[in-house]
């Protein structure tokens, strides 16, 4: 434990995320979109984030990190 106090909640805080979900910003085509990721997978040198895309398909997108 670090012993630090939690940061005070900001009035500009982002929307509440589903428990356990991480939100990342990925570039799809020419647009940046925010998606809730279900997990991360490493393949070779690359890391992908997993989420359900707009088309309803389980999708692995290359991690922006």
């Amino acid at each position, binding site marked *: 434990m670090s012993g630090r106090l939690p940061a005070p909640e900001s009035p500009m805080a982002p929307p509440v995320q589903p428990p356990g979900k991480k939100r990342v910003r990925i570039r799809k085509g020419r647009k940046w979109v925010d998606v809730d990721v279900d997990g991360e*997978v490493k*393949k*070779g*040198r690359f890391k992908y984030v997993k989420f359900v895309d707009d088309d309803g398909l389980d999708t692995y*997108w290359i991690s922006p990190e």
Partner: protein
Amino acid sequence: MPFTGNYMRFALGTWDNKWETYCQTNTSASDYGTCYGVFQKLYFIQSDTTTYPVGSLPCEQAGNCIRFTIADWYYTFTIVDNSSVNKQILLYFVRSKHHTNVITLNCGSFFVGTESIVNPSNVSVSDFIRGPVRARLATGGRCDVYDPITNSVFNIANQTVGYRINMEYYPNALGLKIIGGFFNATRNNTFYAVIAFIAYASEASPSLIMPVDYNEYLAYNELRKTVGWSFDGVNQLGWNASDIINTARELFPDRAWAVYDDNQNILYLYNLTMDYVPDWLIEKLTPTAMKVLKAPADVAVAKAWLDLLNERNAQIPPQAELP
């Protein structure tokens, strides 16, 4: 899918099946050794230099034949095209014909194959036809290839004219190089002509990633029209990713396959999950995204796909793990 491309044409002798295009091989004829309607040099085999000294034949003097005096030979031609660097070969087409009196078509083959030209390795034509483990086109005799023009399977080994074609291409930094030739031709007093087309294209080249058997591939007209066959199961390029997906869905609903859309950089997985996609394939394609069209109901199907893909690409070294 938008494609840009070009083709090269190589001709040895003329090709038109016209009666006015021929070379006289009747030694009793007064015009023996004369070629008519020939605008490019043919190969002519005449080993009798006593009766017909080198340079004495009309076609030699007219400059429309190249005389060879050894009947057991292996002569080649070379095509090099530097503009093909970083493009994909879509297909190449080689026809050759042999002449007794009138030049008639006696041998043809059509290869539909795909291979990255930036691949530094030498690749033989047999890679397109039977895979690298099989005998080469010229030497093995197992050279039946599909000819979409006649919608038939053509086997050069079954030809009775006494010659075969041997071709290799060398994709390298200099571009496409194709070496073709006549191999083990032993017929004397024969004119040979060849025409070859090599088409290539750049831009999007979606591919079906499914190690299909060549004979299986031949059985499906739909698949054949959608993708070109490649032994490694990876470089089977087609024109449109959605067409490839739709065709594969219909033909192989219970098998595992993937389609790579290199326009969107998306790898679609069918009866597969991410777990079964090998790292070397990720390294090769570097997809931005992977989408699971259908998760495998039976993991054995996915594993079979992976095992066969690895087997056919065993020459690819394992990728080193990064720290």
